């Protein structure tokens, strides 16, 4: 950075000038040098969300490494086959939602990246959405979410509600799942649990579960004191056949299940929304036997998946990631990973990184992901994935106890809460009314 000599110039002027220079230098990104394709990685590396998102950055970079090692992204343009290395631009939105928008803008306009892989929380996605829509950018979003969104700037590789929450409850209601009759919907008070529970409630109602057999309860972020809630669950679950559907966020899980175990609550099943990466640090003894529903587990028994998991462990060790020895892969990580490959395939098919062409190429595109073949829907920007119900094992892995027949079609608009709505970017411009032909 240059130091400006200001000599006898008035203090105020000097400060204004220096300030401006500093700002401009800060805001200006790296220069564009042409040949490699720049891609943006937009995951929090500091702040509260770093715990979850750092792993996604790692797996993104690993996929990019793999692709580059095999020569990069190759396509034929004007009769000539060229290969391009992928150059990741990693930024840190620091778990600050405004900064997500700022960094997204910077990636798209300043760094001119072809694609962005990023976000975890709903709010971070909502914050960058206008940026991507307004500047014709493309985002791969790898986390399960509450649905009710239909944007042509985003490809959702995580689960829509009908691929996660609903199958979990359907399973619990089945004979095999224990014929659960009463549901305690417990979550952290924010959009994802609220929306998910709204859909679940509608679905339970449709299946004839009476109102008094459903309870909803929310706690603040980082809630630690679950004494009374567990006492309430205890009362609610008297008589058995009860399940707690938990959408508790992050660090509230442990206080909840410790209280759960210590108050001697044994009668009910709990479906947690925790994945391997979160279980990695927990004492799982009190969680064994409880359930979760995801579209992928590290324990999926295929050679491709074993290779993926092993490769990641190797990658973690090679790059000295914290706690490298115990690193695991989980659903959002797999979704991040195959997202990179799907995009690569689409670029190769389209023969360009142009957003519109890539988007078109992605419709209906399939990829042999670690969990098996996945497919981008032909119309709605979401991903066809298998649904797997897993039981938590003491080593923090899941035993897969139920799997869907084939891939489940993603429905961003739940059939229970918005039966008349659909999402279609081919024949309609996004969200449309199904009945209004």
């Amino acid at each position: 950075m240059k130091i400006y000599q200001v000599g006898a110039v008035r203090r105020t002027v000097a400060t204004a000038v220096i300030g401006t220079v500093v700002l401009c230098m800060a805001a200006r990104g790296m220069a564009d040098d042409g040949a490699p394709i720049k891609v943006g990685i937009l995951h929090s590396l500091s702040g509260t969300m770093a715990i979850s998102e750092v792993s996604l950055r790692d797996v993104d970079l690993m996929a990019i490494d793999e692709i580059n090692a095999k020569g990069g992204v190759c396509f034929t343009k004007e009769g000539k086959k060229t290969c391009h290395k992928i150059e990741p631009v990693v930024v840190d939105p620091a778990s600050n939602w405004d900064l997500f928008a700022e960094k997204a803008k910077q990636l798209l306009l300043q760094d001119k990246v072809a694609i962005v892989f990023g976000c975890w929380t709903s709010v971070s996605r909502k914050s960058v959405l206008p940026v991507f829509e307004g500047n014709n950018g493309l985002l791969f979003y790898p986390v399960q979410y509450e649905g009710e969104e239909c944007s042509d700037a985003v490809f959702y590789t995580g689960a829509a509600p009908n691929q996660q929450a609903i199958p979990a409850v359907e399973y619990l209601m089945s004979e095999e799942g224990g014929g659960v009759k009463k549901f305690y919907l417990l979550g952290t008070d924010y959009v994802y649990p609220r929306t998910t529970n709204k859909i679940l409630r509608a679905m339970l109602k449709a299946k004839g579960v009476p109102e008094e057999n459903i309870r909803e309860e929310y706690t603040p972020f980082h809630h630690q004191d679950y004494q009374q809630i567990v006492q309430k669950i205890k009362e609610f679950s008297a008589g058995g056949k009860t399940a707690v559907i938990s959408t508790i966020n992050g660090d509230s899980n442990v206080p909840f299940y410790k209280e759960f175990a210590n108050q001697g609550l044994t009668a009910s099943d709990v479906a947690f929304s925790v994945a391997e990466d979160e279980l990695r640090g927990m004492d799982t003894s009190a969680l064994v036997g409880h359930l979760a529903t995801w579209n992928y587990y590290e324990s999926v028994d295929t050679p491709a998946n074993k290779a993926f998991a092993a490769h990641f462990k190797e990658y973690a060790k090679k790059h000295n990631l914290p706690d490298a020895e115990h690193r695991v892969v989980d659903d959002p990580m797999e979704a991040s990973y195959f997202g990179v490959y799907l995009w690569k395939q689409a670029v190769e098919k389209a023969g360009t990184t142009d957003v519109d062409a890539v988007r078109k190429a992605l419709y209906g595109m399939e990829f042999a992901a670690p969990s098996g073949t996945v497919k981008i829907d032909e119309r709605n920007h979401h991903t066809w994935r298998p649904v797997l119900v897993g039981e938590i094992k003491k080593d923090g892995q899941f035993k897969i106890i139920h799997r869907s027949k084939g891939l489940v079609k993603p429905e961003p608009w739940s059939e229970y809460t918005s039966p008349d709505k659909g999402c279609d970017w081919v024949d309609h411009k996004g969200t449309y009314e199904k009945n209004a032909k």
Partner: protein
Amino acid sequence: MRSSRQLSPLAVFLLFVTPAVRAQTAPPPAVVQQIDALATDDGTAQRAAVAALGESGDRNVIPTLEALREESLYVWTPPNGTRRMVIARDKTTVDDHEQYLLQDAYGGARLHQADGSEISAPAEELQEVSVDRRVRTAIQVVLERFKLLDSDPVVRRAAAKNLADKGDIIALEALAKAQAAEPDPAARTVIDEAYNLLKLSAPSDQDKLAAISRLGVLRSADAVPRLEELRKTASPQLQAVILPTLDHIRWWQKVNRLLYAVFSGLSLGSILVLMSLGLAITFGVMGVINMAHGELMMIGAYATFITQNWFLAHVPAQAFGFYFLAAIPLSFVAAGAAGYVLERGVIRFLYGRPLETLLATWGVSLILIQAARFWFGDLTAVAAPSWLSGGIEVIAGVQLPYNRLFIIAFTMLCVAGVYLLLLRSSAGLRIRAVMQNRAMSASMGIATNRVDAFTFALGSGLAGMAGCALTLIGNVEPDLGQNYIVDAFIVVVTGGVGKLVGTVAAALGIGWLNTFLELVTDSAVMGKVLILVFVILFLQRRPSGLFPPTGRAVEY
């Protein structure tokens, strides 16, 4: 590779629960035949075999079934030998190859060679017997029945409860037998309840009537939904009994809820006391607004976490449960040392400028959080030692968790300790002297620098112990302290700065009020918000807190 961290706590846990030694008798052929029959993909056949094993009444099949449930049961095909069923859990390394140590499928004892060495096998020779959930449910029922005769009354009670929940009328007989043999009164009550719950499904009204009145006497919460169900179809004669019984049970439920609220208020309050105690010293006595107080708690929590891991690696498994006792002083020392460094490095330059200490320590806390994130990476949690797991059921339906009882007792000890140290010891006299009049104390030969550093380290150490205790109920994570810091300040300010008794009173008051508000508003969020509103309004009425410092020289 990750198993060393994950498996072992459970291995230890199992060690405490299952009887360690079993008789090494020759297995009856019929049982062996059923065990062999488990090795199939056919769920129905597996369920039949499981049921048959249950009928056998042979307790040596418990390890078999447990292994099957967690899929540690294997068919072992040695290179030159006959297939047999084995249990394989623990790994060992033989000639640089990972191998499984084998256990007998019947009885679960380790298999030994003729020369006494343990038999192990590579993974290739082992074929897992996999089961579906329905088989596992079946195993559960069989195991519960076995557990009715377990040596541990806690296990027997859980088994009875589970059998009642499953609603399997076949278990009635087993329960009756178990009840007759039950020596433990609490367990007998639970078995009694389970028996009568099942008896509600008995065909005769006479049986039902007896069950209903008995359940009423037992105030069985579990009976409520079943009685409701029964009411719809019952004869008028039964109806007349069911209604008052329901009322009676419901009334007791309300009493239970209230009792538990009182307890959880006390528990929450004692946690608040524990985390505010250190702050009461650093803030209340020394006038330092230590925003890194929460991070000192975090250091204490990580000290506990490291202690646990060290015990896992270096201490025999039987002694693992004692790690927590070792962790308490260690967390005190770790956080105290950090506090000492903080005082010497930063705070001593800022005495008398409280708002500056706020900013500087906030900066320190940011650094500590990110450093912890860098070193430890993730959300972690410690395994509570077995002697702090579970709880004591004081009356039916109200179980007081041991970890919370421990925290309450621990808090009382800490308060007593701090009280004695500050007000009844010569060190405390010096601390109070320096805090009241630095110049005078210095002229009387007190090394004020050392007293400052010691006092701050003491406050920090207390924060560390609070962090240690908090691992019993929550996570170990980098921003653990951030969850508590606002609460801790609120407690100290509400109590009146510099007053130990104020801090304790405010913490307990806020604990109870919070619990009460949560009960009334039926929402944890509103409870929390309202408590803050109350505190703000309270401080408007009494700006110096519950126990204000008084006197002519005081200017708040």
